[in-house]
């Protein structure tokens, strides 16, 4: 059984070892402890310094990761924290007692060690008297002490390492101190990073790059080559001439130092990756993400049109890069991009007039504008940014074209591929236009007639109103003033750009007397100060019935001339057909004969078409003549007869001749059959010529009666007018006789004025009758007209009637009545003079059945009635148009 070990070296022993030995062991222990504690501490220090140096060293080559630095620090401190306690425990704690020391000594001096261990154990041996001899024990102890005293126990100490550790510590410390003093930034930085591995202390490099402008990740344009410029930091210790970088696992790209920075050119990239940058000891790994550039998702302008147009703001899509807007407008551009924006810039350039639309000048950075005659100065436009949206300030549209350039940069510092350019073309607010449609430039009509047409007005922005206006002029001297008026047909609106409205114009409804009217449509837009724009005029000849009859007469003359020409042509064709029959009749089936017949057939067809055309004209003429009412029944009957003949000729006779001539050339015909066809054609042609002659005769007869009747009617009307004047004065005679005009009652004054005007009008009419008679005679050379003209001239009716008008005005009532009656009788005599001629001039139309006359008269009356009813209806419609135009204006008035 092993001896019980003392719990402590300081416990009193039963028989302590000799003092000398005791001291010797104590000294041994102290020395052992000192050495081993020193070793532990120095090793701990060496570990710490080594770990620092390790971090310093690693940091010089790359960015030592936090974890590595932590491990290094833990490893370094572990010598202190783990090794030192262990060492102390091993060598101090476990070598604190004499027996422990004896065992250690026995390792070097085994014999002494055993004996020394025995002596130590004897100290506390507690045995009985019969088994233990204190003297022997003391002697043994002495003996051991004597033996130990002869030896140097320090030789039994384990090999001391503390000097080596000290040397190591001093060396490491010296190195660290030197490094810190030599590279204070690097040293301190490493120290900091070593002590606080988890802190975000940036690694110190001698080459320092300024990465403050690089994002995390840094966004680059997707798929586009890009350049990366990395400047050296201001506090960089070194400035390597070349740096290199690579995108992901791509090739290294080298960049020389230029202007204090390195610019790397990379190919287009599509994937998120890391860019490694190396410049001497500066090594960085930066995340890069290729993203699409910020493009315009929508771009539109809110256009404020000039106030006078009274139009609401409108949105204009500007993706086309072009917009045109009326001058005086202003626009605000609103753009939405695909990404949030960081900054934007807009400027506007006023372009010279007529600048090329296809190649607007671009004002990109660094680009100089081509020298032009005018100086182009960009003007900055204010922009408001709100996330993805940017809104410009109001841009006024002047009279010159402009180019607006907008650039933007998103939150990743990416700009759009190209600056967005918008060409703004100012438009002039064009004047509106107006025209009358569905009416000829010149139109002849009676005052009772109604003409229908469309009033059309157009404008680029909005029509305020449109209407018509008329301005009359008398064709001959007339009392009173010519008609002048206007009418608003439709009110427009700021958004109404076209007005197309039918309108019925009735001179009678508008109290327009016979005269020449210049009719225009007008319109106006909202532009201040522009006023009305008028259409080209349409001239309306509003005729009295007599004037209308005269016009019809002229048209009838022309129609007769045309009929004569057709008849002549038909006669020529007939002659030619006879010649053909005579010369080629024996062989009409030859090619020459056929050609000849074909030629004749074509000519016949042409003549037929002329006749059809003339028949249409004649029909219209007849209708107008019926409408006129002043043309006598006999004349109309003759016209009707001629018209009937012409209808038959154009619809039956001439087509039959043409057909026969066509048959005559038929190849399937025998020569005999062709001869028969030609013969029949000639026979029918003869009949047609006879019919034409008869029609011509009727037409000429009608014309004769027409012209005579026209003068007769005009003179009759003039005589009636004189009678009427006389009677109106007779009606007033009791009130007015013997008084001065000025003394008369206003009612009577008005009546006298009216008679005076009537007298003047009649004088003018008679003057024109003379003029017309003279012209008519010079054209027809008919003696009866010359005779009448001379009679009227001799009578000096012009002067006399003028004098009479003055008398009426001066209230010479009695003489006025007498003179009026005198001239009424005189004019009737002239009527008889001409009417006799008219009645005797015919002679061709006699023998017509009375039933036929009655029927014709009935039809004539019915036709007139229909025309009159149509006139009434048209005028009713015109009145309704007027009423409606008034009604459309009334509600606005009330509002």
């Amino acid at each position, binding site marked *: 059984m092993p001896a019980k070990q003392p719990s402590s070296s300081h416990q009193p022993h039963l028989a302590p070892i000799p003092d000398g030995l005791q001291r010797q062991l104590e000294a041994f222990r102290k020395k052992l402890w000192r050495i081993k504690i020193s070793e532990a501490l120095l090793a701990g220090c060496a570990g710490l310094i080594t770990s620092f140096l390790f971090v310093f060293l690693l940091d010089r080559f790359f960015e030592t990761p936090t974890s590595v630095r932590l491990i290094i620090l833990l490893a370094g401190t572990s010598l202190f924290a783990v090794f030192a306690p262990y060492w102390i425990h091993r060598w101090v704690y476990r070598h604190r007692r004499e027996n422990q020391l004896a065992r250690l000594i026995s390792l070097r001096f085994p014999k002494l060690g055993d004996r020394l261990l025995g002596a130590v154990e004897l100290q506390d041996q507690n045995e009985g008297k019969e088994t233990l001899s204190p003297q022997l024990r003391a002697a043994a102890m002495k003996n051991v002490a004597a033996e130990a005293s002869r030896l140097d126990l320090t030789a039994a100490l384990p090999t001391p390492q503390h000097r080596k550790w000290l040397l190591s510590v001093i060396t490491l410390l010296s190195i660290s101190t030197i490094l810190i003093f030599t590279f204070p930034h690097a040293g301190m930085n490493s120290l900091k990073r070593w002590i606080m591995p988890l802190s975000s202390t940036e690694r110190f490099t001698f080459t320092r790059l300024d990465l403050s402008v690089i994002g995390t990740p840094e966004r680059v344009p997707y798929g586009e080559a890009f350049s990366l410029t990395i400047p050296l930091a201001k506090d960089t210790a070194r400035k390597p001439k070349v740096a290199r970088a690579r995108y992901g696992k791509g090739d290294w790209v080298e960049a020389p130092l230029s202007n204090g920075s390195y610019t790397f050119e990379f190919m287009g990239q599509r994937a998120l990756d890391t860019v490694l940058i190396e410049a001497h000891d500066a090594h960085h790994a930066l995340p890069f993400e290729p993203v699409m550039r910020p493009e315009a998702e929508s771009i539109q302008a809110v256009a404020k049109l000039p106030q006078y147009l009274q139009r609401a703001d409108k949105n204009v899509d500007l993706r086309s890069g072009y917009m045109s807007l009326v001058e005086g407008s202003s626009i605000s551009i609103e753009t939405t991009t695909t990404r949030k924006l960081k900054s934007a810039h807009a400027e506007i350039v006023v372009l010279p007039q007529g600048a090329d639309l296809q190649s607007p000048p671009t004002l990109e950075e660094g680009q100089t504008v081509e020298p032009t005659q005018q100086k182009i100065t960009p003007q900055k436009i204010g922009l408001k940014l709100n996330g993805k949206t940017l809104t410009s300030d109001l841009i006024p549209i002047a009279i010159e074209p402009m180019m607006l350039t907008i650039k933007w940069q998103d939150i990743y510092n990416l700009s759009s591929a190209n600056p967005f350019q918008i060409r703004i073309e100012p438009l002039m607010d064009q004047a509106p236009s107006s025209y009358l449609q569905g009416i000829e430039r010149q139109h002849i009509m009676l005052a009772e007639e109604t003409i229908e047409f469309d009033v059309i007005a157009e404008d680029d922005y909005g029509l305020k109103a449109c209407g018509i206006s008329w301005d009359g002029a008398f064709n001959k001297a007339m009392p009173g003033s010519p008609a002048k008026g206007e009418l608003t047909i439709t009110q427009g609106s700021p958004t109404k750009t076209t007005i197309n409205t039918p309108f019925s114009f009735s001179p009678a*409804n*508008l109290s327009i007397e016979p005269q020449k009217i210049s009719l225009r449509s007008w319109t106006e837009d909202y532009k201040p100060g522009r006023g009305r724009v008028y259409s080209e005029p349409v001239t309306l000849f509003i005729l009295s019935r007599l004037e209308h009859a005269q016009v019809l007469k002229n048209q009838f003359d022309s129609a007769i001339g045309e009929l004569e020409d057709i008849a002549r042509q038909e006669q020529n064709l007939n002659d030619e057909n006879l010649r053909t029959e005579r010369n080629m009749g024996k062989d009409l089936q030859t090619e020459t004969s056929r050609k000849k017949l074909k030629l004749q057939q074509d000519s016949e067809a042409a003549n037929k078409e002329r006749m059809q055309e003339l028949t249409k004209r004649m029909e219209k003429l007849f209708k107008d003549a019926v409408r006129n009412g002043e043309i006598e029944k006999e004349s109309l009957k003759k016209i009707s007869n001629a018209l009937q003949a012409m209808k038959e000729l154009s619809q039956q006779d001439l087509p039959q001749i043409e057909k026969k001539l066509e048959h005559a050339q038929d190849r399937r015909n025998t020569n005999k059959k062709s001869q028969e066809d030609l013969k029949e054609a000639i026979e029918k042609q003869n009949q047609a010529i006879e019919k034409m002659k008869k029609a011509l005769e009727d037409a000429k007869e009608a014309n004769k009666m027409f012209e005579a009747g026209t003068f007769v009617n005009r003179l009759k009307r003039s005589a009636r007018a004189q009678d009427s004047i006389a009677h109106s004065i007779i009606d007033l005679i009791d009130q007015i006789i013997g008084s001065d005009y000025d003394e008369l009652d206003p009612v009577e004054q008005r009546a006298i004025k009216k008679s005076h005007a009537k007298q003047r009008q009649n004088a003018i009419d008679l003057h024109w009758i003379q003029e017309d008679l003279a012209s008519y005679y010079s054209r027809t050379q008919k003696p009866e007209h010359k005779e009448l003209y001379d009679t009227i001239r001799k009578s000096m009716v012009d002067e006399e009637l003028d004098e009479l008008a003055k008398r009426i005005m001066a209230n010479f009532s009695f003489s006025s009545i007498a003179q009026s009656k005198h001239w009424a009788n005189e004019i009737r005599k002239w009527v008889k003079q001409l009417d006799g001629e008219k009645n005797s001039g015919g002679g061709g139309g006699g023998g017509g059945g009375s039933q036929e006359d009655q029927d014709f008269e009935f039809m004539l009356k019915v036709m007139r009635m229909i025309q009159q009813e149509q006139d009434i209806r048209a005028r*009713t419609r015109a009145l*309704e148009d007027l009423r409606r135009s008034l009604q459309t204006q009334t509600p606005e*008035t009330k509002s």
Partner: protein
Amino acid sequence: MKSIAYIVVYTAMTSFSCLADDPINKKETGTEPIEENLQQALKQHGEKAQSLAIEQDELSADVQDLIDEQTDAEVIGMLREIEVIMADATDLLDQKNTGGATIATETEVIEKIFEAAKKKQQNQKKDGG
């Protein structure tokens, strides 16, 4: 708003002033009562309608003359019918009605006259045949 109303009324006035053949450039003084001018314009429209009524009545008299000249009972009957319709048209115009009803009545008159003329021709052919 008031000024717009004035402009519109002026336009209306000038529109109807033409019925009286007023000069084109006659300017609104602004002192004349608006309602009065409108009433005047409407009055003139009425006068013109009534003048048409007189013309319609005169035409009706012509129909009566035509009836007197006729011997064919059928035609006479038709002309009498026309006379009645014409009287309606006259009444409507006299009431200053120029609207669709009046125009329809006038159209009926025209159609009936055509029919009467046709009937007359047919009867003549029968008699002649």
